[in-house]
């Protein structure tokens, strides 16, 4: 593929920094949004966690309580550009886990709510769409993890 003449060496550096920032803000926003709903209605979210039938019953409530706060803290760290190595890596681990569980439950045809952004069983049943949506969040997450950063490491 031929490069456009004149653009030559002057690759626009700030766009990469912009992309990195956009990825952080996007994922951070998603995580905070996802976390808030679950924090405000933790008993409903516990129901969602139970329905997934992944965890032993004894761990259901604890997970329902702590998981949204992990999302919240990660969201804040991503947006603030704080502790990025840990925040980005944990975000990736979290999203990979969610995607794996969704695919698992989707493939065994469990008739349950995704509970990804809403605790209302009526609004968000697991479907190909919710699976794809979760998997698609991995794109910016991977990008943040593997992108070469041209700007300084902490956000400004």
């Amino acid at each position, binding site marked *: 593929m031929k490069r456009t003449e004149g653009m030559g060496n002057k690759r626009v550096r700030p766009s990469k920094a912009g992309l990195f920032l956009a990825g952080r803000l996007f994922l951070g926003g998603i995580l905070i949004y996802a976390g808030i709903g679950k924090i405000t209605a933790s008993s409903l979210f516990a129901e969602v966690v139970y329905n997934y*039938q992944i965890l032993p019953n004894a761990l259901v409530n604890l997970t329902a309580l702590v998981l949204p*706060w992990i999302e919240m803290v990660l969201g804040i760290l991503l947006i603030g550009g704080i502790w990025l190595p840990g925040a980005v890596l944990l975000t990736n681990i979290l999203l990979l886990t969610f995607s794996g569980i969704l695919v698992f439950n989707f493939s065994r045809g469990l008739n*349950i709510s995704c509970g990804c952004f809403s605790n209302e069983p009526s609004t968000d049943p697991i479907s190909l769409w919710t699976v794809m949506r979760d998997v698609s969040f991995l794109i910016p997450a991977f990008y943040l993890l593997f992108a*070469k950063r041209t700007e300084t490491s902490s956000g400004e």
Partner: protein
Amino acid sequence: MMEPLRLIHNWRQALWQIPVVIIVAVILALSINGFRQTPLPLVGDWSAAARMTTVSGEYLDISIGDAARLFREKAAVFMDARSAADYSKGHIQGALNLPWQEVDQLFLTVMAELPPDTPIVTYCDGETCSLSHDLAIFLRDMGYVNVKVLVNGWTVWKEADLPVDEKNMVPG
């Protein structure tokens, strides 16, 4: 900045940051939950019996035997809480379809002719399927006092060889 260019190369930092994030989340979760008016118990009772009990302590579930008797006597309306697609593949004979996913839109249409004291049996499919349970609670909240849940209904109904409507026999 002395840090390597890629975040992935800073795994040493991630190694301590991740546990700290989790600890902070646990502390926040437990303290905020503690301040709630009704804190979520840290270990919940998720036994089938507890889940099928209403706030007032009433059992919601109905045995397949009782359900079959109601069916034979035409004494109850069966309500399929699954999606229209699942319903059309097969359902308990004569059951109405009120997909929990669309209950807001369909409630009035489906329930129009049913007086509040109609005995209703909701069901979906799978031991852990919560649609029927959610629908039952909802119907009770809407004033239907005789609602029961047939847990894992579609499966146990077929296993008991009770009458079903199979594909392409969807009533209007």
